[in-house]
């Protein structure tokens, strides 16, 4: 309610302001139609020139990338098919207009059909409009066109606002900035943006646009069943979401994957943290000599590249691997296998143990993943906490021991809270990292073992993209996108959006909470 009111009052004051300054409104309206015209009226020539130039560049870009000049002749020569129309913007529009058209329609003319009396090919070098519409390309190009348009529109809005505000200031008798002074100020003001432009372009093209593109796929029907460009993909709104939520089988598999993703992310972070803390406390304690040696040994796993570690462990837990060999060598294979069966990790008493493969060994594979992750990840926290331990204030402990606190008490009440507070952001960061820790699953188990067949819903068996028992969301998304016969891009995109929303929320919260990062000096 409160927000609405302030919104309303914003509009009220906005219109009241306009009513009071009809002359300034006139400048704004002039700039509305032609960029820079209002500024010219305000006698700011250089500023007017800049805005006008932006308009000219934008219009010229559209015109020169299009083929408007060919249009009249060709429309006479190749008229529309009876009962159908000519898609003028598609055939002759420039980058911006045809891009927006493509984004909106995802194409109208698939390959192998007749259009304007001609045969549409996958690629036609001579007549561009006889090239088939490739919906995926159109979506990508359209996205770029949309972003360029948005940039242009923000200049346009700025130009209108500027015309209004400058005129108002001038009428109020304030000294108005000359156009030249404005250009100079612009250069210094803009310097940060100018230095950032290369970075922004890189991130825009190689991170942001690809992500946006993936998200948009969620609202289409794009799967491997659509042979592009001979068929078109379509906007289907929330149909994919409905399919996933509406099908009980999908929902239950999704629930299990999501549950395991959370369990994995929490367990992986918590175990690494606890073990890392224990190692750090022991090494830093007064009972241990040659601290540097121990630290160096225990840091080794962190120095080995993770991908290599994971693949090595895939071999360690192979049926012929180190784990089983050790069990045989020590003669404890039978006991261990029985034990794993009794605590429910193994589905049968095997000899040798199938650590990562058998259908009934899902829980065992999950336990192994967490253990391997512990091997990989605990040195990080060990180093982090060692660092924190060296900064702990000594006088606190002295005061505590004078007050008669036991060692355990001073650990519980001083050391632990201080460590926790200093490392909390790192814990959350590790959690979000593990939530998306694709490699830990892909290189170790590849998502296996499979689900028992009776648990897989029929719809999933038909469509493909069945996750394994150890797949977390991100590795399932990979399977959904790139497994042969499972390229359900739209379903993958829906889950991507989900992950993005969740992980994005947690990390924004985490980053914006930590004050040290933002304070300006």
């Amino acid at each position, binding site marked *: 309610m409160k927000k609405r009111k302030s919104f309303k009052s914003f509009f009220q004051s906005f219109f009241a302001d306009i009513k009071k300054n009809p002359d300034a409104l006139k400048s704004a309206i002039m700039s509305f139609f032609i960029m820079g015209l209002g500024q010219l009226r305000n006698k700011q020539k250089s500023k007017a020139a800049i805005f006008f130039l932006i308009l000219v560049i934008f219009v010229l870009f559209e015109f020169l990338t299009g083929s408007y000049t060919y249009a009249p002749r060709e429309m006479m020569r190749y008229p529309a098919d009876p009962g159908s129309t000519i898609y003028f913007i598609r055939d002759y529009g420039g980058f911006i207009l045809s891009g927006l058209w493509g984004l909106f329609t995802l194409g109208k003319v698939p390959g192998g059909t007749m259009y304007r009396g001609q045969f549409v090919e996958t690629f036609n070098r001579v007549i561009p409009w006889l090239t088939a519409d490739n919906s995926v390309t159109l979506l990508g190009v359209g996205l770029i066109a949309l972003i360029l348009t948005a940039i242009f529109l923000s200049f346009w809005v700025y130009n209108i606002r500027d015309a209004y505000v400058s005129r108002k200031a001038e009428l109020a008798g304030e000294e108005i900035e000359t156009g030249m002074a404005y250009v100079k100020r612009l250069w210094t003001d803009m310097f940060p943006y100018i230095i950032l432009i290369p970075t922004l372009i890189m991130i825009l093209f190689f991170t*942001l646009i690809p992500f946006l593109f993936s998200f948009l796929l969620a609202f289409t029907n794009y799967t491997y069943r659509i042979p592009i460009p001979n068929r078109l993909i379509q906007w289907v709104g929330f149909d994919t979401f409905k399919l996933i939520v509406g099908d009980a089988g999908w929902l239950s598999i999704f629930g299990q994957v999501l549950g395991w993703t959370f369990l994995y992310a929490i367990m992986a972070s918590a175990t690494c943290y606890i073990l890392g803390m224990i190692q750090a406390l022991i090494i830093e304690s007064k009972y241990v000599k040659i601290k540097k040696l121990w630290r160096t040994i225990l840091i080794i796993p962190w120095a080995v590249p993770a991908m290599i570690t994971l693949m090595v462990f895939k071999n360690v837990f192979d049926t012929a691997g180190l784990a089983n060999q050790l069990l045989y060598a020590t003669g404890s294979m039978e006991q261990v296998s029985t034990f794993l069966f009794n605590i429910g990790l193994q589905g049968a008493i095997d000899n040798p143990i199938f650590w990562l493969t058998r259908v009934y060994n899902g829980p065992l594979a999950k336990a192994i993943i967490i253990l391997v992750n512990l091997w990989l990840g605990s040195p990080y926290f060990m180093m982090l906490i060692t660092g924190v331990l060296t900064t702990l204030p000594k006088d606190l402990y002295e005061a505590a021991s004078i007050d008669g606190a036991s060692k355990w008490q001073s650990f519980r009440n001083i050391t632990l809270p201080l460590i926790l507070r200093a490392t909390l952001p790192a814990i959350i960061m590790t959690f979000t990292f593990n939530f998306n820790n694709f490699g830990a699953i892909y290189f170790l188990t590849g998502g296996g073992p499979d689900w028992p067949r009776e648990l897989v819903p029929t719809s999933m068996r038909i469509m493909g993209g069945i996750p394994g028992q150890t797949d977390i969301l991100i590795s399932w998304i990979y399977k959904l996108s790139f497994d042969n016969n499972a390229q359900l891009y739209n379903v993958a995109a829906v889950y991507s959006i989900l992950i993005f929303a969740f992980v994005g929320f947690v990390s924004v919260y985490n980053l914006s909470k930590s004050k040290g990062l933002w304070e300006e000096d």
Partner: protein
Amino acid sequence: MKPKFTDVLLSILSYSWLIISAVVVLVPLLWMISAAFTSGKLLSGVPLFPDPSRFSLEHYQFIFSYRSNPAQALADFPGAFVRTLQIAILNTIGVAFFSVTTGYAFARLRFKGKKNMLLTMMVLQMFPSFMGMVALFLLFRTFGFLNKPNYLALIYTAGSIPYNTFLVRGFMRNIPKSLDEAAAIDGASPLQILRMILFPLIVPIIGFISISAFMAPWLDFILQYRFLQPERMTVAVWLFRTTDPFNTLFYNPLRFMAGALLIAIPIMIIQFFMQRYMVYGLTSGAEKG
């Protein structure tokens, strides 16, 4: 007498814990080394204890001489090594350039939307690049970059700008601002301040991000696997191929161990030398004080 006894007990406990940890850490690695020098392709044939009589350089011979296509100038592995090296060098240059300029803007300049921009960048880098891979593939196809290893550096660079920017920014903020101000009074432009005053002072962090950037392409797999044909494969793809049981021609876990050792050892050495900076990188993510 009692406290003495607990001291002894605790030190025994501590040492036994550390010894067990050290064994758990070292055994898989020693086994890996042992496997790398064992002939054949059976994991079960790898001796648990080093056995000089079964020492073999078979896998290294394969690594340095096998050509899947006789016309290749280089053997498979060295070829993959050279391609990865090229990506790594390009990535290093790109990352150093972009993160220094961007880090400078975020550390020293005032502009609108600074916090949100940094936050957006930090969030974007939380996601693996394959989430946008369909689009990246399209982009690469449109520009004719597919199957050209060097262009992958573009994606790696873009992906690692945010975190490295964050590091450079943190490092620069510890340099007193009075230095810049003095230079500005003497008439230095912002770019001159960056080049002549700040750059010499941030060399350590540039060294760190350059080395991280250099190491990244050796260990990323998915992009290289999807964007390059087998004849242009990289080290990571080579390694993965040897551990993929469905790849009957190349599957050989022992060969994998041999190749992995070749890559892991230099990286481990670098990591150990970079430890100090690593800790800095880690803790800068944590809250100050």
